């Protein structure tokens, strides 16, 4: 877990632990000192109480002795002492009550002591009054009653009890003070030693950890600086190659600019040729439309020809029918002529002239039959020709239809070609414009390439500086590693 701590955190934690130890030792020492001071104060307080007890007995003794002096001598000076002793007794008792306010046993004793003191002072006052009024004897007699001694004995007994009480308290408080002093000594000495040991241990641990981590980091820095040096070497070589490549690219781009300008000029010529082609295509379209109209006229003419030829066929059929009649008549005439010839031959000489006529009729019918055959042959040939012509005309009509459709297709193709040429013209213009933009862009690229080449040269110089810095960093890392390892070994 501590491997992930930062240097600042390790140092902060080390100093915090050391400070906590010192704070603990200071707190314990302070507490011991406070206890020691308190125990000392209690001892002093006990001494004060015992001193006031002694003072009380002394003041009561002054009261007793001043009365006896006045009784014996009658000297008023003793009365001054007596009055001062009375006040002192009362003040001392009041201080004792104050000092032992926390001790109920002593409070009860002093409560018992107060009437006895007042009783003794009253006995003294009575002795003084007897002296003044009755003289020495009266005064002595008042003293000889023994009341004063009894009262004093009882006062002394109570004061002795209170003093023993305070003496016992003093013994306990002195022991506590001694114990506090000893504890304070051990706390200071032991805490100091423990704190010193812990601080040394924390310092050793912190130094060891920091040294290890710094050593590792220095090792990494050393290897990284070596790698950086190698990379800087490669970067120098790459920068040189990049500078050379950029020079080549600049040369290529200059050639590209020249080529792009040539392409722009060619695209301009292509656009001009495309416009001329579009105009020619429009003329061709008009010519195709004219030809299409001519073909339509031809088609109508062919239809009329077909109609006429069919009509001719029908007429030839009618002629054939008439010819059949003529042929039949010729055949009947021939039969009649043959039969007439036969009859004429059967009639002998009388039928010779009729035979000649019949022979002429037969010849005529033969000629008619031959002519009919020829006419039929001609009509058949004509009908065959008409049929052939009709078929040829129908074929021509179909060809004209096909030609018309083909011309329509040609016209459509011409229109498509015209549209394509328009598209080609637009494309050529776009190509021209794009090529000009491309030339501009290439010129910008050329400028940028020149800048990049300049940057590559500067990068080469910077790479040299980086290489030098990497070498210095490597040397510095080696020195730091030597220092850290020597410190580690030390």
């Amino acid at each position: 877990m501590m491997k992930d701590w930062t240097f600042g955190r390790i140092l902060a934690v080390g100093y915090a632990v050391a400070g906590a130890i010192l704070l603990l030792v200071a707190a314990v020492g302070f507490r011991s000192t406070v206890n020691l001071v308190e125990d000392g104060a209690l001892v002093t307080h006990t001494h004060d109480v015992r001193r006031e007890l002694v003072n009380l007995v002394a003041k009561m003794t002054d009261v007793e002795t001043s009365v006896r002096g006045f009784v014996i001598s009658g000297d008023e000076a003793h009365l001054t002492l007596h009055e001062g002793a009375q006040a002192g007794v009362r003040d001392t008792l009041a201080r004792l009550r104050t000092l032992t306010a926390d001790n109920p046993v002593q409070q009860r004793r002093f409560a018992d002591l107060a009437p006895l003191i007042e009783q003794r002072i009253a006995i003294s006052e009575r002795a003084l009054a007897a002296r003044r009024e009755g003289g020495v004897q009266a005064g002595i007699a008042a003293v000889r009653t023994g009341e004063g001694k009894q009262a004093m004995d009882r006062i002394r007994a109570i004061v002795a009890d209170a003093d023993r009480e305070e003496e016992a308290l003093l013994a306990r408080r002195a022991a506590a003070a001694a114990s506090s002093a000893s504890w304070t000594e051990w706390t200071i000495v032991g805490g100091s030693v423990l704190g010193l040991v812990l601080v040394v241990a924390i310092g050793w641990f912190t130094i060891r950890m920091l040294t290890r981590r710094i050593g590792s980091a220095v090792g990494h820095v050393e290897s990284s600086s070596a790698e950086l040096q190698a990379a800087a070497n490669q970067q120098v070589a790459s920068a040189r190659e990049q500078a050379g490549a950029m020079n080549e690219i600049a040369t290529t781009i200059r050639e590209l600019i020249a080529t792009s300008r040539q392409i722009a000029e060619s695209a301009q010529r292509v656009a001009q040729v495309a416009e001329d082609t579009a105009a020619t295509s429009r003329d061709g379209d008009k010519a195709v439309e004219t030809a299409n109209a001519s073909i339509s006229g031809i088609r109508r003419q062919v239809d009329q020809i077909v109609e006429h030829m069919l009509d001719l066929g029908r007429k030839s059929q009618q002629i054939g029918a008439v010819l059949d009649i003529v042929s039949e008549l010729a055949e009947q005439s021939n039969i009649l002529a043959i039969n007439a010839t036969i009859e004429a031959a059967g009639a002998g000489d009388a039928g010779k002239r009729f035979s000649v006529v019949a022979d002429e009729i037969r010849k005529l019918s033969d000629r008619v039959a031959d002519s009919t055959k020829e006419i039929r042959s001609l009509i058949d040939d004509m009908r065959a020709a008409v049929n052939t012509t009709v078929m040829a005309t129908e074929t021509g009509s179909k060809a004209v239809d096909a030609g018309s459709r083909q011309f329509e297709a040609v016209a459509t193709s011409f229109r498509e070609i015209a549209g394509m040429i328009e598209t080609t013209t637009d494309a050529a213009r776009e190509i021209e414009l794009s090529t000009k933009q491309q030339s501009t862009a290439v010129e910008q690229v050329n400028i940028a390439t020149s800048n990049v080449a300049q940057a590559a040269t500067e990068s080469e110089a910077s790479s040299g500086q980086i290489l030098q810095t990497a070498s210095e960093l490597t040397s510095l890392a080696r020195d730091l590693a030597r220092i850290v390892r020597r410190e580690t070994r030390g």
Partner: protein
Amino acid sequence: MSGGGGSAGDLRAAFDRVFAEPPPGRPERPEPFLHIGVAGQPYLVALAEVAGVHAGCTIAPLPSTAHELLGLAGIRGEPVPVFGLAALLGGAAGAEDQRWIVLAAGPVPLGFAFDMLEGYRGIAPGDIVAGDGGQEPWLGGTAAMAGAGRCPILRLAVLAEMLAARADRANRERER
């Protein structure tokens, strides 16, 4: 000049050709024949054996054992038995449209039907080669026709005699 020279040359050649020809003798009178077709075969029939030619006559069929007999036809107000020439000449009966009828000259009116009448033909006697038909006695030689080669001559009289003889035999057998 050349045109005039050419015309004079032509006139001279015609003059020479006239005198180069032999003097015309008595021309041979051509023999009249009928050129007919029977089942696709051409035949010549001497007009002297023909009593008449008719076409499109209605033939009423008769029940008979002779398959050549087509029936009776009314010609010039008389019933005439009509035989098919194709069947008589060895062909199939009724194979052709036999719309033509030739009447054989003779005491008994007899008609022969055939399918094609080519026409009248006058043939020089020199072009006729006589002969018997052998196993076909109804053929009486051949005759040369201009542009058609030689054509057999059909003897209707022989056919009529053959039919009459067969009828006589049949009558006699029937009488027996």
